[in-house]
């Protein structure tokens, strides 16, 4: 990999673009209006094309203003089509933005001879060319795109910080917001303006299709990682910028592994954003698949541990005639509750480590600590059967399965409540003694 200052500028420009998009993008995602970002980014095209035709140059303020205005009009037109045409909102959006986008394309093709902009750029931008068009900035030569996107990022950042409270309430509860004097409609169109301006600024670098990935994907990824609004915003900026770096590195390395020359950075950036999203989906702390798996595994292990204790307790209760040989537990578990195998072996090892059971001459015994835990479990089981027998019209042999589940989840208060309700029962519906409440296990 050949890294030059050229590459650094590409990454920086891409990162600024992603960061600028991530701020309004987060609010789009939170307002469940991601499609509106899609619509606006497409619809700014006729505004851009008109400005190109009029001024013959890029980066003028006219272009900015024209495109942003068309972007905001998209939101307005969508509302009109939705209301006047009684068309469903997403359909209205589809009508408006495809029409505007197509109009823009036609205008671009017409003007193709006069301006240096081709429809391909509309699709995926020209991030790689950004360093070629540099401006002097405090003595350093900085790509014009980086300057523009940096400025837009800063403006967005200031707006989000200053209007943080207003954006939060109008996104969460626009009606209450309006009654408190922060008009939901005004905030909506303010945000749409922000989206439109940002999309225009990002247009040259990443085109009007890939900008959607920058608006939506980092925000959706960040949402998987946290339940705090400011952290969602910060993370989506960071993930967006990280995706841009990863995207460029990927663009110049990944294709060479397969014998191709390097590929477009903008495309790879969007792909990297997708990869980051999948990673967040897997590894997110609360919503993540991995953490959910770990949680379930932990639960399965706890249930197995408690079942082993319960089994040993019942064997003890049976008069000590039967002792469980260490290797026998798994098969006993299997016949008693259908469990067994690896999880049971892990559970037994865990119980040994925690001092709940110990082996004596090849047999498993409960320690005093283990017996206390086991009492609690068996107490839960038999109290549950008592409770179900009182309230459900079920024959006694049907009580067991639900108790097998419920015994692991009854709290102290629930056990007491059942006991009080049933007038301190001493035996369960099968006649087995219910362990009494003690200081430790109530």
């Amino acid at each position, binding site marked *: 990999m050949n890294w030059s200052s050229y590459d650094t500028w590409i990454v920086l420009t891409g990162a600024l673009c992603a960061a600028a998009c991530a701020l309004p993008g987060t609010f789009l995602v*939170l307002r*469940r209006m991601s499609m509106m970002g899609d619509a606006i980014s497409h619809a700014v095209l006729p505004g851009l094309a008109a400005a190109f035709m009029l001024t013959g140059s890029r980066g003028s303020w006219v272009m900015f203003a024209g495109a942003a205005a068309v972007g905001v009009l998209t939101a307005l037109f969508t509302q009109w089509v939705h209301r006047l045409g009684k068309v469903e909102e997403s359909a209205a959006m589809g009508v408006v933005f495809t029409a505007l986008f197509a109009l823009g394309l036609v205008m671009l093709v017409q003007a193709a001879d006069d301006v240096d902009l081709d429809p391909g750029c509309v699709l995926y931008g020209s991030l790689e060319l950004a360093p070629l068009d540099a401006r002097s900035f405090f003595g350093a030569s900085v790509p014009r795109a980086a300057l523009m996107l940096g400025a837009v990022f800063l403006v967005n950042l200031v707006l989000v910080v*200053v*209007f*943080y*409270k*207003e954006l*939060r*309430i109008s*996104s*969460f*509860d626009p*009606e*209450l*917001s*309006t*009654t*408190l*004097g*922060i008009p939901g409609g005004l905030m909506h169109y303010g945000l749409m303006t922000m989206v439109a301006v940002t999309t225009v600024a990002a247009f040259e670098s990443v085109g009007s299709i890939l900008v959607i990935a920058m608006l939506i994907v980092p925000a959706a990824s960040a*949402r998987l990682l*946290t*339940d*705090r*609004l400011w*952290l*969602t915003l910060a993370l989506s900026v960071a993930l967006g910028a990280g995706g841009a770096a990863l995207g460029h590195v990927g663009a110049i390395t990944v294709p060479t592994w397969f014998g191709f020359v390097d590929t477009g950075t903008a495309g790879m950036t969007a792909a990297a954003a997708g990869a980051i999203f999948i990673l967040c989906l897997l590894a997110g702390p609360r919503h993540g698949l991995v953490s959910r798996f770990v949680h379930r595994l932990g639960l399965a292990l706890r249930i197995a541990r408690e079942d082993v204790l319960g089994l040993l307790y019942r064997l003890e209760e049976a008069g000590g005639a039967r002792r469980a040989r260490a290797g026998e537990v798994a098969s006993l578990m299997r016949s008693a509750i259908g469990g067994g195998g690896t999880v049971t072996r892990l559970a037994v090892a865990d119980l040994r480590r925690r001092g709940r059971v110990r082996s004596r001459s090849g047999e498993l015994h409960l320690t005093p600590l283990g017996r206390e835990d086991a009492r609690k479990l068996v107490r839960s089981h038999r109290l549950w059967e008592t409770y179900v027998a009182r309230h459900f019209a079920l024959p006694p042999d049907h009580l067991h399965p639900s108790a097998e589940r419920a015994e692991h989840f009854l709290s102290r208060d629930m056990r007491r409540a059942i006991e009080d309700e049933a007038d301190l029962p001493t035996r369960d519906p099968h006649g087995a003694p219910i362990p009494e409440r003690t200081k430790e296990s109530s």
Partner: protein
Amino acid sequence: MHRSLKDDASPDARSCGAAEPSSESGVASLIGGAATAASSPCVASGEEHPSSSPLSIHDMTVAYHRKPVLWDVDFDAPEGKLIGIVGPNGAGKSTLLKAVLELVPKASGRVTIYGAPYRRQRRLVGYVPQRESVDWDFPVSALDVVAMGTYARIGWLRPVTRKYKDAALAALSRVGMADYADRQISQLSGGQQQRVFLARALVQDAKVYLMDEPFAGVDAATEKAIVRILHDLRDAGRTVLAVHHDLQTVPEYFDHVMLLNMRIVASGPTRDMFTRENLQKTYGGRLTLLDQAAHAMARGIANSE
């Protein structure tokens, strides 16, 4: 105070009666578009609506797509009372609250809060929307949501400071939710979410509260807690209008009742107005003539152009 119900036989009640579908102002404005308070004979006589009333609705008609859903609502809320708004589905209960709050446009009529237009008295009115109206997956904590009730006081561009967070926390304790302040709101049960909404209204410290089904889908403990808070509010001289669905508990919870079905069928002290006869009028089907007129207006206007 409840002029429209004072006596159905009295001439002035009839002339601007709430249940008169042909009352001039509402219909005229729907067709002509110009809604003027002066065109209404009821509103013109100022003494009809005492300025001391926490909430006066002057001959209000509300239409969606030019189709009226609420006709000529004329109402004065008595101060310091709990007022239940009762009626079948589609009767316009939520619409009534939203029209008062200017969240949906009025076809005609006006609303005053303690004698002045709502816009100038915004701060005196607290709103508890239906629980389903917001996205509970939004990344905010219970405390954040309650603190939103202070935003009007804080004003634009200023941050939510310690002082306001403390006020929000105090309101959360009042509804028994202090322990859940830092919880993300999706982790709360339905009853807890409703309490959070109520705490948000409390922290607003409003004089008039409009609540849209505060008892919907809550557990028995939350229902009791909400009733207790409503009583506290009343004892502090606040006025509460709440949309309510459970007819069984109306006499127990509310001092006054407004029976609504596209128009006010009856309103006044619960013991006088919450009668079998009035309930039958409210729930015994819609007035077909009102429906026909509404459809004709929606259709007629669309066709004539």
